[in-house]
Structures are given as structure tokens and as C-alpha cells.
């Protein structure tokens, strides 16, 4: 039986089309043989009770796939205009309004598979959904998700139907329908179905899908429908529409207040819950104190309640103070000898001592020194920085000093000691106050400067915050990272969700500094509640407050906010928060951009983490391909709101890694490949994709029904060739003569990149330039008279100037400069040839799409070597227009200047396998075979080590390839044997030598490395001499000749 793939390769074949709409039980075709339903029909009952109905008319229809050469974006004019004759009244019913639809108040998440039988309605009643449609998604009779699937084997996951029945409504409504109905954006697919003349059958839908040749277009229906009685003209957007979504739109984008919620750390070494009190007198003009009782950071007596309020702190201090005042010290009993007294009150601290005349006739001042953590002072309304005394000119000034300066061994960082004297306002020392030191026996007050119990953010993460009373609306956790293990206090429960918020409020770092708006970013974890209000939100604690845990701060400068990380406790009366969509996994130096792109494309919202940060396991979602097993965090990992749910079957995943290889500064690990993306509210995924593509010179194309990423300025080599086009592949009129454009682009003189986007506008920089302009340095620049400028939007590039040189993340700017000043400028400005509108036969057309690298030979197009006709030129396809009626295509190819073969490559090396138990598994003399490792040195490329021991198929040089085997005998390397290659097997990883060519001794248990014999030792006719580069002396020559060395392919 001929496979579908073989059928598709034929130029002359009988075929029809099948239009499938996701969630719809009927499909349209243009072939009678395919129409029907259930047993006996072509579709049969293997895919449920689907109906294939006649009426599709694709005569004259075309599909165009293109990648913009200038900026690498996929072109959006990939729509398909479909004609359908509605013979069976399917379409007219499909487009009918459904008044019986029911709005739901409960969420149907993609993880609910199978779907529950009922969802909660807005009125609280149960709404049955089995056998019905939730928005565009069909639910099966037993809760199957996406029951009427787009692919014959079923679709990976259902969609997210976010809903919420709380008071704060931020979501669009979701409805349950009794029948499929037209909704904008419903996904659809077009299959080409081939007839097998050998067996006189139409192979099944599944066989067609599995061939990779049948699915020729995917897209989504629009409301653009023009019926003319039963003849409908429907407009459907193409595959680019699947990349177009407002992502993150379900997350609230309002700024809401953060309630004060204090927790004092009890961690040894970082304790914040202890205090110290020292009570003393001092006579005027006497150097020594009269020392009363003191108590310093005693873990039993001098301790605050860790989650107390200002009132609790005052009570604890006053209680301890009363005890100490009555306790004899080394010299005095502070509260008895001169009747000193002090207390902490709401808004002030007061202290007094009896005035003269006294028993000994000397004037004394009373002094109380209290040390507590800055959080405690701030909670009581005192600010140790702002209120620190200079001249004691007002009762707001207090002598605050770091605890260490007051000779107090604090139990952790952040402690401040305050000295409260009876010396009245206006005197900056006891001696200056003279007889007034006792304040005439009256209370001396020190006033707090701020309201008490204001919200505080400590500088170190690991604290809880309250987002106010009641749930803050729909608030779904992200799955980019695992949850940090924590049990929330006050009955908040164990954290099981995590997300990100921006925090802002007024801030003053130093006493003399003006107040500014502080903005910072934090990861937050909470207990998710999806039951009470039907959709995910933050669970409430015992006081009905939405309580969250802050396990870490995120350096806000990564997201354009010109604020350094907090280095002291931040207390502000106007502190507020706003949820943020943080798209990424690594929270430090950024993620690799191409991985983010992958994750954006394939995330469906079905991933789960088990365990907690530090030991968590990620189970990626249903759309996870095995190819990404090693990088699961960049697979189907994010929630549906932050993913495009593009099936991984239509993504060429290896191309993503390959495209990064040519980035300057380390390829995949180049700093230019790092990105950080975050936003508030919704953002356009198409813009996000463009922001990833543009600053890296990448292009995204839909090629052979898969999205592929490629690097536009890459110098193409023979290795890259995927299709060969010769004059025999050109179809059309006999007199067809191809036309070319010798200026594919207008030259670019400068490239300006803007990375100034700021997540929170209040945090925008005022003095840093977040743009970079680079000048072209291509060879033609010296003579060109031009001012062409390319503006590059580059959200996500790390705004390095905000670090002001203090430990900035890796610098991408030199890589960018190299890429654009050299590679991109050369590419834009080189003598490329754009071959436009080349008509291609069906057998070849199916291989071509935007991004395909071709080797092209044509008869007429002018080349840049001074003759007509292109011979074995390399080029990349940028546009393909497929004619659905003839299956042929017209293509635009950007032909690279120069001739293939000008450059040379690295020679191969192979290592003989050694973890085997018999000699014949290493070398088999009877079959002349040596067994080598597939990837001995961990290069990681999908290229067998033995592959380049034979001549590439496109090379026509010929000749033998002589190999040397080097052997390690335990002490030294020696050349032990040699042979001439006959063939290699890149699957079995073997090299077979030519009969009679083997000489030397193969030690059966030693290490062996096989390389090509040196250039001089190769036969003068050997292809190896023409293909590989050679190590030279410093004068760039080698060997006996000496021979001039050869440049490498870049």
C-alpha cells in the first residue's frame, strides 16, 4: 500500500479537502466519496459520530505563508477564503443565536479533565455541561474535553473558561450552549485527503494526519461571513491567528491597598522580637551615670509577640519598664530614688524625674535607653532615620542610633536604640541644659512622626502581607515556578499557589532625601480558594483577610523600574499592590528568549507542580513534547491565560535552539538571548513575539505546517539545505522567465533599539538613557550615501544602565552591536538576489515554506558573478503562495550572494565504543566495521560523529578518505592503524572500511580515536582536501608545499 506521504510526493494525484472546525461535529468536504457518517462512510465512527457533509468549494482559493524579511515577523495575511454550499442546513443552524445559553459562574479550567458534570451558574444553581458546549469547546458525554477535536487523535487539552462569582468581576462572561454555535476565533483546520489509486481507497483521516503531509492549514473562523442564499463565503484567519491573543488578561490590573501586617522574625541570628531597656540618672556636669536596672534582649523577659500591634508592643515595654524601675540597679533604684517614671503611649513616649530641691542638692536628669527592631519603632509611629535628632529643636527629635553604636549586642540586624532624656526641647546635651535637666519635674514627651501600625515591608523577604478584607477578585496562581513552602498565620492555611505583585508607596531612604515613590516586585504565595467563589482567588484567613506570603523580592530593575532593591524596612501609609504577569522561570538573570517563546506557544494550563520550591517536581501539561524533557520548565508549563495552546505537533522545536546558535557572545548562552518579560493586565502576544524576534535578528515562519524559528542573517551552508530546486521543478508557461530584484531591502545605516519599557510608570528612570544606537559596519558603508534607520522595539532586554555599574547582569549590548553592526548590516546591505514569484511543481511545493533553505539552479536569473543563470546557489524561502486547486505554489526566495563551497568545515572525530563485552562489538573484521560513539564529546547536536567521514551528497569531488586510528596504550597516544572509508551508518554509528585498506593493529581493549589522515597524507583527488579546513602555522600555511590555509565557515 502506498503511504499518504508517498501520495503527497506525486505531482499528479487525485485529492479532496476536509475542513474541520474544533468543537463542531460536522466537517465540510468537496468530494462525494468522503461525505457521510458512521459505519460504512469514509469518516466511520472511529472519531465519534462525526458527519462529513458536501458543499466545500476551494476552487481558486490560495493560502499564503510569509515571513517579513525586514523584521522577521510572520505575515498575518495567511487567511483562507472558503466557499461552502450549505446543502444540509448545517451552517445556517451554526450561525443562529442561541437564546437558551446559560451564563456560568464557576470556572472550567483545562486541568479539569474530564470536566465535571455540572458547573455552578451565576445564580448558584448547577448547570449541566456534559454533551454541551462551554463557549467554543465541546464537552463529551462523559466530560471529555474538546470532544469534537481538530486532530483525529484528539486535542491535547481543553481550554480555560475562567469564571468567578464574587463581587469584584474582572472577567468576560462564559456561557454554556446546547449546540455548536459560531463564535469568533473558533479553531479550524484544512486537510488535503489523497486517493490511493493502487488500492482504490481513501486512506483514513488518522493515516492522513500521521503522514505529516495532509494538514496543510490551520486557522480560526472570523465573523466575516457573506451568505448568498445557501452559498456562504467564510473568511478564516490563518495560523498566525493562533499567535494572537491578549495574554494575562484574566489577572486584575488595579492597584489596591496593602494592609499592615507585622511579623517579627524569631529566627536565631535574625531575631526581631526582642528589646532592651537601660535605666539611668546623670547629674549635670558629672561624667558618670548612676546606673539603675537594665534588661538586655532576654528571650524570656524582653520579648514582643511576633505578630503584635503597636498597642501590644507598648504594653510589653511598659510592663517591663515598671518591673525594672522598681528593681535595684548597681547604683540606684530608678523609680524610687528620684521617683523617675516613663511610659510608651499612643503617639508619644514620656519620661520625668523629681525636680530640685533634692536630698543631695544636685540636679539630675533621668535617662531611659530602649533598643528595639526598626519594625517595632515604625509600628509605634517612630522613624529611626527621619526622626534622628540633630539639635533637639522639636519634640519629634529622638536620639536614635544603631544598636551596635549604643554598645548593645543586638540579636539580629536592624535594631535601633533610642535615648529618652528628661532634658527639655532646645538643649542638645544635659550639661547645656544646666538646672533645666530635670524639666522641672514635668513629663518630657517625644512624639511619633507617623501613624501607628502602618504597612511595613521588610528589606528581607520571608514575611506575610494582607491584601485587605475579602477576596481581591479572580486571582489565579502562575505555574512558572513551584510554590514556596509556608503555612500562613492566623488560619490562612498552607500556601498552594504563587504569583507576582508590584508594590508601590511613598518612601524616604535617608533623612535628607525627598520622599519618592518606591516600587518593587515580589513573588507572593497564598492558599488558593477555587471553591467559595467558583474561580481561583486568594483564600481568606480567620479575620477574612486575603493573606499572602512574600518569599522573595525580585529586582525591579529587570523590568525597567529605576529603583534599587530595598535595603531597609519600608513603611508607608499609602502602600498598594498590583498583580503582575511575570512571564519566565528564572527570577535572577533572565530566561533564554527562545525558550520563553516555546513556552508561550505551547502552554495550555495543564501543568502541575508537586512539592515545594527547592525540591519540587514539575509535571508539564498535556501539550508537552518529549523533545523538551530536559527543559520541562520551558515546555507546556504556564497557565492557559499566559499560553497560546498551539499544539506542539505544529512547532518545529529543534529549529528554536538552532536559531540561537549564531547569536554573538555565546550562541544560546549569549547575554543577548536573555530576556525578562512582565506586564500588568493583558498584553498582545503578537507584540511579545515580535519583541523577542526583532533584537535578535530572528524570523518566525510557518513552514511545512510547523512554526519554525530561524536566524535571518545566518550565512547559509550546504548543511542547511532542505530542498533542491532545479529548472525541472518549475511549472508554468513554457516561456516563463524568472525575474529578480537586486535590491531586496533598502540599506540600513543605523539600528536603534529601545528597551525603556517600564512595568510601573512611577518607577521610570529620570536620568538613564534606555536606548542604544549602533552604526552599520558592513563593507559597503564607506561608499554608500544613505540615512536608513531601523527602529527596533525590544521589550524584555535587560535595562542595564539602571544598575549604574553596580553588579549589573551580563551585558548584552556588545553582542547586540556585533549582531546589528556587522551580521545584520551585512545581510541587509549585501548583494542579495530576491527571486520573486517562482512557480513550483506540487511535489516540490509541499517542501517549501517561509524559512526553508534551498539550493537553487535556474536558467535565466542573473547572478552576481557576471553571467546569467543561477547554479547551485543557496537561498531562503520567505514567501509561498499555495494554490489549493493545482497544488502548485509560487515562491519568493532570497538568494545568498557567493558560491557554496567557498568555505570549509571542521573535520570529524570519532571514538570507538568501549562499554561492550566482546571485541566484535568494537571492531568486526569480517564485516570491516568499526563501532563508534554517536556523540563522544557531548556536542549535543543531532549529528552522528561518523557522519562526515563520507563525502556529503551534494559534493561532486569524489576520491578516498583516509583515516588514522590513534590508540591510548596506558602511557601514550600512538597511531595504531589506518583505513580508507567505504561508508558510514549514522544510525548504527559505524564506519565501514574499504576492502583491503585496513592496516596496523587494533588493540581490542584500548581507547581509540579515529580522525582523517592529515591533508598531505590524503590522496590528491580526495574530497576531504576540498571540504575541511586545516591547522596551519602562524603564517597561514601548512605542510610540505607549503600550502595556503583555508577559511572556515562561520
Amino acid at each position, binding site marked *: 500500500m502506498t503511504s499518504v506521504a508517498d501520495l503527497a510526493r506525486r505531482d499528479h494525484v487525485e485529492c479532496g479537502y476536509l475542513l474541520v472546525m474544533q468543537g463542531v461535529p460536522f466537517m465540510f468536504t468537496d468530494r462525494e466519496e468522503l461525505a457521510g457518517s458512521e459505519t460504512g462512510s469514509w469518516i466511520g465512527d472511529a472519531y465519534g459520530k462525526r458527519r462529513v457533509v458536501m458543499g466545500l468549494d476551494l476552487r481558486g482559493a490560495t493560502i499564503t505563508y510569509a515571513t517579513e524579511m525586514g523584521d522577521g515577523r510572520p505575515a498575518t495575511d495567511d487567511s483562507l477564503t472558503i466557499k461552502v454550499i450549505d446543502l444540509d442546513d448545517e451552517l445556517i443552524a451554526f450561525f443562529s443565536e442561541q437564546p437558551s445559553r446559560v451564563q456560568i459562574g464557576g470556572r472550567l479550567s483545562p486541568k479539569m479533565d474530564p470536566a465535571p458534570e455540572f458547573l455552578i451558574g451565576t445564580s448558584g444553581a448547577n448547570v449541566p455541561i456534559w454533551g454541551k458546549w462551554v463557549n467554543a469547546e465541546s464537552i463529551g458525554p462523559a466530560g471529555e474535553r474538546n470532544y469534537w477535536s481538530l486532530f483525529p487523535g484528539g486535542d491535547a487539552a481543553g481550554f480555560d473558561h475562567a469564571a468567578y462569582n464574587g463581587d469584584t468581576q474582572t472577567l468576560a462572561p462564559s456561557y454554556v450552549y446546547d449546540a455548536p454555535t459560531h463564535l469568533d476565533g473558533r479553531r479550524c483546520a484544512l486537510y488535503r485527503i489523497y486517493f490511493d489509486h493502487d488500492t482504490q481507497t481513501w486512506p483514513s483521516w488518522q493515516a492522513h494526519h500521521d503522514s505529516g503531509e495532509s494538514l496543510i492549514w490551520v486557522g480560526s473562523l472570523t465573523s466575516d461571513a457573506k451568505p448568498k442564499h445557501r452559498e456562504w463565503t467564510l473568511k478564516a484567519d490563518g495560523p498566525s491567528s493562533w499567535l494572537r491573543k491578549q495574554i494575562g488578561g484574566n489577572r486584575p490590573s488595579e492597584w489596591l491597598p496593602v494592609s499592615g501586617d507585622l511579623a517579627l522574625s524569631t*529566627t*536565631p*541570628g*535574625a531575631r526581631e522580637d526582642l528589646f532592651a531597656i537601660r535605666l539611668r540618672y546623670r547629674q549635670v556636669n558629672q561624667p558618670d551615670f548612676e546606673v539603675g536596672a537594665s534588661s538586655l534582649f532576654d528571650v524570656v523577659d524582653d520579648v514582643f509577640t511576633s505578630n503584635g500591634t503597636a498597642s501590644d508592643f507598648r504594653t510589653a515595654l511598659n510592663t517591663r519598664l515598671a518591673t525594672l524601675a522598681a528593681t535595684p540597679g548597681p547604683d540606684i533604684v530608678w523609680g524610687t530614688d528620684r521617683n523617675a517614671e516613663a511610659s510608651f503611649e499612643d503617639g508619644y513616649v514620656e519620661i520625668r524625674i523629681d525636680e530640685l530641691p533634692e536630698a543631695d542638692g544636685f540636679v539630675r536628669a533621668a535617662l531611659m535607653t530602649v533598643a528595639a527592631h526598626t519594625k517595632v519603632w515604625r509600628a509605634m509611629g517612630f522613624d529611626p532615620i527621619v526622626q534622628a535628632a540633630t539639635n533637639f529643636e522639636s519634640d519629634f527629635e529622638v536620639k536614635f542610633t544603631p544598636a551596635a553604636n549604643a554598645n548593645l549586642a543586638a540579636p*539580629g540586624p536592624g535594631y535601633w536604640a533610642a535615648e529618652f532624656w528628661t532634658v527639655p526641647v532646645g538643649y542638645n546635651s544635659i550639661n547645656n541644659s544646666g538646672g533645666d535637666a530635670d524639666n522641672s519635674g514635668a513629663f518630657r514627651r517625644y512624639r511619633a512622626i507617623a501613624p501607628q501600625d502602618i504597612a511595613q515591608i521588610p528589606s*528581607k523577604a*520571608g514575611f506575610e502581607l494582607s491584601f485587605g478584607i475579602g477576596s481581591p477578585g479572580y486571582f489565579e496562581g502562575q505555574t512558572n515556578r513551584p510554590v*514556596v513552602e509556608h*503555612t500562613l498565620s492566623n488560619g490562612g492555611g498552607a500556601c498552594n499557589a504563587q504569583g507576582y505583585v508590584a508594590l508601590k508607596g511613598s518612601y524616604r531612604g535617608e533623612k535628607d532625601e525627598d520622599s519618592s515613590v518606591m516600587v518593587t516586585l515580589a513573588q507572593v504565595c497564598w492558599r488558593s480558594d477555587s471553591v467559595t467563589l467558583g474561580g481561583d482567588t486568594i483564600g481568606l484567613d480567620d479575620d477574612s483577610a486575603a493573606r499572602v506570603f512574600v*518569599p522573595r523580592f525580585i529586582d525591579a530593575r529587570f523590568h525597567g523600574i529605576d529603583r534599587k532593591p530595598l535595603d531597609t524596612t519600608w513603611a508607608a501609609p499609602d502602600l498598594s499592590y498590583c498583580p503582575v504577569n511575570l512571564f519566565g*522561570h*528564572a527570577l*535572577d*538573570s*533572565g*530566561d*533564554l528568549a527562545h*525558550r520563553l517563546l516555546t513556552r508561550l506557544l505551547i502552554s495550555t494550563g495543564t501543568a502541575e507542580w508537586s512539592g515545594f520550591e*527547592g*525540591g519540587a517536581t514539575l509535571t508539564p501539561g498535556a501539550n508537552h513534547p518529549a523533545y523538551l524533557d*530536559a*527543559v*520541562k*520548565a*520551558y515546555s507546556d508549563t504556564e497557565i492557559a491565560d499566559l499560553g497560546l495552546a498551539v499544539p506542539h505537533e505544529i512547532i518545529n522545536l529543534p529549529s528554536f535552539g538552532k536559531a540561537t546558535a549564531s547569536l554573538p557572545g555565546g550562541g544560546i*548562552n549569549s547575554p543577548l538571548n536573555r530576556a525578562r518579560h512582565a506586564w500588568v493586565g493583558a498584553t498582545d502576544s503578537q507584540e511579545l513575539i515580535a519583541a523577542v524576534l526583532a533584537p535578535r535578528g530572528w524570523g518566525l515562519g510557518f513552514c511545512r505546517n510547523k512554526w519554525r524559528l530561524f536566524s535571518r542573517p545566518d550565512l547559509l551552508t550546504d548543511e542547511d539545505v532542505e530542498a533542491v530546486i532545479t529548472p525541472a521543478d518549475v511549472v508554468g508557461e513554457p516561456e516563463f522567465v524568472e525575474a529578480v530584484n537586486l535590491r531586496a531591502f533598502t540599506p540600513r545605516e543605523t539600528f536603534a533599539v529601545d528597551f525603556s519599557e517600564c512595568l510601573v510608570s512611577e518607577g521610570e528612570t529620570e536620568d538613564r538613557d534606555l536606548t542604544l544606537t549602533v552604526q552599520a559596519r558592513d563593507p559597503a558603508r564607506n561608499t554608500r550615501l544613505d540615512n536608513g534607520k531601523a527602529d527596533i522595539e525590544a521589550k524584555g532586554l535587560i535595562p542595564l544602565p539602571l544598575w549604574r555599574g553596580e553588579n549589573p547582569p551580563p551585558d548584552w549590548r556588545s553582542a547586540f552591536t556585533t549582531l546589528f553592526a556587522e551580521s545584520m548590516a551585512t545581510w541587509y546591505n549585501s548583494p542579495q538576489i530576491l527571486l520573486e514569484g517562482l512557480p513550483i511543481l506540487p511535489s516540490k511545493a509541499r517542501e517549501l515554506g517561509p524559512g526553508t533553505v534551498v539550493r537553487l539552479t535556474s536558467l535565466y536569473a542573473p547572478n552576481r558573478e557576471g553571467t546569467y543563470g543561477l547554479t547551485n546557489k543557496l537561498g531562503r524561502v520567505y514567501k509561498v503562495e499555495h494554490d489549493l486547486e493545482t497544488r502548485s505554489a509560487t515562491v519568493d526566495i532570497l538568494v545568498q550572494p557567493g558560491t557554496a563551497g567557498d568555505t570549509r568545515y*571542521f*573535520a*570529524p*572525530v570519532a571514538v570507538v565504543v568501549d562499554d*561492550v*563485552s*566482546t*571485541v*566484535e562489538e568494537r571492531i568486526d573484521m569480517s564485516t570491516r566495521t568499526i563501532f563508534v560513539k554517536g556523540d*563522544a*564529546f557531548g*556536542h549535543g547536536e543531532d549529528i552522528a560523529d561518523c557522519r562526515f567521514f563520507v563525502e556529503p551528497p551534494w559534493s561532486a569531488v569524489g576520491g578516498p578518505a583516509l583515516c588514522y586510528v*590513534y590508540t*591510548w*596504550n*596506558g602511557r*601514550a*597516544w600512538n*597511531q595504531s592503524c589506518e583505513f580508507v572509508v567505504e561508508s558510514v551508518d549514522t544510525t548504527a554509528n559505524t564506519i565501514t572500511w574499504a576492502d583491503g585498506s585496513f592496516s596496523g593493529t587494533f*588493540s*581490542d*581493549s*584500548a*581507547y581509540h*580515536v579515529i*580522525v582523517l589522515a*592529515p*591533508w*598531505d597524507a590524503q590522496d590528491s583527488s580526495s574530497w576531504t582536501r576540498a571540504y*575541511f*579546513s*586545516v*591547522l596551519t602555522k602562524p603564517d597561514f600555511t*601548512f605542510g610540505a608545499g607549503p600550502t595556503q590555509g583555508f577559511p572556515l565557515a562561520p
Partner: protein
Amino acid sequence: MTLLHRNSKADTALLLDRDAATITTDLGPERTNLTNVTTYLEEDPSPRAAIDAPRNITIVATMQTGWGGTLIELGNNATYSWRLSVSGDEVFAAEGGLLRVRLPVPGLTDSKVRVVVHWSQHTQGVIVFSELAIYNDATGQWAFATASHSAATPDPDDTLTIGASFGGGSPYSGEADAVLAVHLGRRFHSTTEARQDWVAESTPAAFTGFDRSPALTAAAADLVIAGEGEFAGPSFLMAGAATRQAGQRAVGHFINLDIREPHVELLAPDPVRWYRPTPSGADGWQWCVRYLWHGLLSPKVNVAAVRIHVRAAEVTGGSTISPVRFRAFSIADLPLNGGPDKAMTYYRGPIVSVTSPSSAGVWVELGTVRLARDAEGLSYFALGFLIDADEDEGVLHNTSWKLNAITVTPFAKDLSGGGFGGDMDKEAP
């Protein structure tokens, strides 16, 4: 098919093993068999045995008290290049007429036992070190001696004899039948390698770092593929791979303890002051000063593989215990004596549980933990543990456990999210 012997290595000049083939059969890469002269084995001449230091000679033979004679020799009718012989239950290793090192065979009795005699040499400048190790297979005893001496030059025209000296002189009491295996090699073999090859092969620990030598490379003078006129590529790839692997090698243990008198831990801490709750605050998890270590770490490592040998048991020998859970903690800035000014940082490994008693104890892999260290490079390691008491604990059974051994092996690992992100494993303090 021609079987490859596990002990046939790149340096092997001769390998005999009675368990695998006739004793005269060379199982090494040269595959040149010896001659059986009835009471002894011979190769005349034997240039391959004329190896100068570094060199390995291992002979496995049957012995008993009172036996003597030449085990193996490279010599002629007048002199010898090297010789291993037995006399008075003692093994003598000699070269060019000079005794290099001698050692009594441990635990020898008047019944026949299998004995491994391992004489290996390595060089340091012009000095040669001879290591002689002898293993008694019946008693499991090892004996070891070492000596330094000048180098010798073996004569390639000499004859190799096994079970006697040249021409059958000074025959070994057990004759050729007593010879069980022989290995001659061109490099030094450590006693550990001898144990792996001739006593028992151990099971390697589960370990994601490179714990062996990186890819073999050599100077351009030795390996001509890096020389001028060679094709470019292979030398770059080999050197690059070797460098990368070298960077990921283990650099030696941070902790490697075999605890002679392990303390029996029960549910109740004793004394209480030695225990602290783990900083994560998870219920019941504890640290104890018995299981707290510190030291300075190499700057090239960032994670450690942790392995403990634990004996968990019911105190009266019962068959049920509550699960005992373990977790590795790496800590920086551990507060001591009032504490430093900096807050503590720590990272944790996964939780691994022992759920059934074992009298012999079990090795428990605690996985990989990221290493925390302070600005000076000081790092603490603590074993977190929890007897996860079930409802029968203290009623029907009393769970105990003790730590017999622990290894914490630091190495370098790409922590950037599989090479694709930032600090994936980083945990908030």
C-alpha cells in the same frame, strides 16, 4: 564472539585468568598466549613484560603456610629484571637483584586460600615508589607496604616465567596449577583498582557529576591531531570536552565519615539542648549538633551529592517503625553565640524516607543539595531529620535510627534551569 575481559585495559600487556580461559591464554589486547611447561608458564623472550616504572604486576595464586618459591619472574639464567617470590609466608618483590619491598601474607593458615599479590610502581621525578598489597580472600584481610627506590631497566631479552624462575628453577610450591590470574600493565594501578579488579567490584553511587577522569587528551607532541597540517576540528572538540568535564569533576569530599560509635536517636531529643528545629519551621524536623559540620568549600563547586548510611530499627527488634525522614541542609551564616549580623541562608535537598527497619543499615541517597556559603567561603552542612511518628509510635513500637556513615561530595552543576535560565534551585532564606 571474542569476549573482552573486564580487567583488560588500555595499558594491559598480559592478562591471564583461569576463571575465564585456560591459564596460558592471554586475555589482554595483545592476545599472545604463553607456553605451558607443565609446572610453570613461560614466554621466551618477553619484551612486553620488560616494562619500566610506572608498571603493574598482579598475581592471584593459591597459598598456604610453608609454601614458597618464585611466583612470577622476568629473568635469564644469570640475572632477573624483576621477581615476586614467597618465602616463610612472606612475599618479596625484587628488581635487578635488589629487594624493593617485602610483606607477610596476612592470615595464612595450613589450608589453601586465594591470595592477591599486587605490586605496582609509580614515579615521582627519578624516584620510583613500589606499593605491595596482599589480600587474603578467605579472611578478607589486607596487608600493605611501600618503599621508594631508584628506577630499574628491565631487559627485553629476558624470559617471563610464572610459577618458577628461569628454566623452572626455584619452583613455587603449588606449581602452575596454583596460579589463578596474572596482570601486567604499563601504568600504576592503585590498591583500590586492585580491589575492584580482583576482589569485588563496588556499586557506584548515584551521582550526576563527573566522578572519573575527563576525556583523554594529550599534549600536541604526543597526539599529532593537534599538529600543523592536520585537519582542523578534532583537537578543538576533544580539548573543549575535556575542559568542560574537568570543570565538572568532583573535587573531593566535604564530609566523608565512617562513624565508629553512632548515637542511637529516638523520638525524644537527648539532650534537648543539642537539638534545634530546622529553619523552615516544618513540624518536627530537627537539626542536632551531632550532625552538623562545617568547612571551607572550593570555589568551583556549587552543589553536593549527599549519601548517608542509616540503620533504622525498632528498639526491641520489632518489624514496624514510624517513617524516618532525612533531608540535607547546606547553610551559610549559621548564627552562633548570639549570631552574626547577617541573616542565615540555607538550601535544602529533597526529603528521603526510610520506612522499614534494617539490621545492617541501608545507604540512603539524599540527592543533590545546592551549597550555601558565606562571603569567606565557610559552609555548614546539617542533616535534617524527623521521626514521623505514627499513631502507634511509643505504644506498639519505638523507632530509633543511627547514622553510620555520611558522604557529602561537592561538584559543579549547571543550575541555570537545565542550562536555560537563572538560578532555578535558589531558595529564599
